[in-house]
């Protein structure tokens, strides 16, 4: 696919903003706020310290769910790779989690978890777990039979096989799954915050914007969410590329 040049990108953005402006004008700048109004609110938000506290609170929830989700996904992915019984045991669980809509999870979690603030975190964990698990398992199964039989002949202990053979083999898959999970986790966390009306959260800001008919706030916060998501994904990509062991895979 051809790369979009900077100038071209600016023109494309300008086109869509103009179109947005026209739609807003047609809707009397109320149901659809104008780009100018949204821009003003966005600038206001960016100059307020409270905005950053809110973003960091939501970000902390995303980070927490990612760390736990990745940990669980890697652990169970490798265990399921080593042990067929564990794999079979987890098949219905993983299929159930994958097939269940996010909103169902959120509602069910609010029904059973006493502290609402934990719901977005648990929701994030549940969404990123199957992605990480499936990718780690796939990476595990991609280890060549030849290397496995070599390890068997030389009686390499299981722990060393896992650490030196299976884990490095799953790393490229884990990295790709982590990047996917970040986006999904971010969206799910905000959805859970909104439904649960969680204090100090981006979700609550969207909810307030809707309830108090401040549509320009809803639009401004949505732009902030998109910007944050892009920044997190880019940051994660840079971080992953800085990990030396990943460099080793690049040369193969």
């Amino acid at each position, binding site marked *: 696919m051809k790369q979009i040049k900077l100038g071209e990108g600016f023109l494309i953005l300008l086109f869509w903003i103009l179109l947005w402006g026209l739609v807003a004008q047609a809707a009397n700048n109320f149901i659809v706020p104008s780009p100018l109004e949204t821009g003003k609110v966005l600038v206001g938000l960016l100059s307020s310290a409270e905005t950053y506290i809110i973003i960091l609170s939501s970000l902390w929830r995303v980070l927490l769910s990612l760390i736990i989700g990745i940990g669980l996904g890697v652990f169970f992915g490798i265990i399921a790779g080593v042990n067929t019984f564990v794999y079979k045991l987890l098949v219905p669980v993983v299929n159930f989690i994958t097939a269940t809509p996010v909103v169902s999870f959120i509602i069910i979690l609010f029904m059973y978890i006493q502290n609402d603030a934990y719901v977005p975190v648990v929701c994030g964990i549940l969404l990123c777990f199957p992605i990480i698990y499936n990718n780690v398992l796939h990476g595990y199964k991609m280890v060549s039979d030849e290397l496995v039989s*070599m*390890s*068997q002949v*030389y009686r390499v202990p299981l722990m060393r096989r896992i650490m*030196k053979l299976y884990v490095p083999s799953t790393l490229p898959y884990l990295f790709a799954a982590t990047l996917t999970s970040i986006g999904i986790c971010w969206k799910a966390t905000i959805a859970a915050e909104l439904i649960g009306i969680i204090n100090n959260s981006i979700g609550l800001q969207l909810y307030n914007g809707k309830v108090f008919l401040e549509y320009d706030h809803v639009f401004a916060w949505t732009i902030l969410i998109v910007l944050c998501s892009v920044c997190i994904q880019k940051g994660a990509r840079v971080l992953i590329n800085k990990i030396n062991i990943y460099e080793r895979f690049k*040369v193969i």
Partner: protein
Amino acid sequence: MKISKLSKSFGSLEVIKEFTLEVLDGQVLCLLGPSGCGKSTLLKILSGLDQSYGGQLIGFEDKRMSYVFQESRLIPWLTVSENLKYVLEGHMPDSELDGHIHRFIEKVELNDFKDSYPNTLSGGMKQRVSLARAFSMPHDILLLDEPFQGLNIELKEQLMGLLESLIKQDEKTVIMVTHDLDEAFRLGDSVVKLLGYPITDFQVLKDKTREKVGN
């Protein structure tokens, strides 16, 4: 050590049938047979990689095995020395490990490549690493599965010389399968031609050990 009435089938296809052979300690035994006759299967059974067979392996149970495969089977994300360390760790004190690895890398003349990854090595170099791995590993029996397959004549000649000297220094039991008569006669104390399909019998083509005993 004795292979006694060994049988192996893949579904309805029999590859080895009631095959019996004695292996002497310290002997370099070359098993000669055409490609696809079941030689590699026999080695897999001896190494314990394949455990679904009939018959008995007497005296092989407690033996430590080293194996040189047809392909080098190196872990791509580990360097040459790390590949050796992968199998050697735990078999000797950590303080001796690096020196031991270095000695064997030196023996296969790969000093300058000890920190290289397998993808930067030629086919012959990879197989030299595989030899270093096999010989550096404390073992009672060394299994060689057509270690020169796919290499050009020059490389094969180089590697055979290297293998010959390593075997002499090692003084352990070696079982090598090959389809190359020259290879077998050059390296083997005994050369045994596997007969039949499925393999049922053998014919002794060379028996240096018996000559020694006779002398």
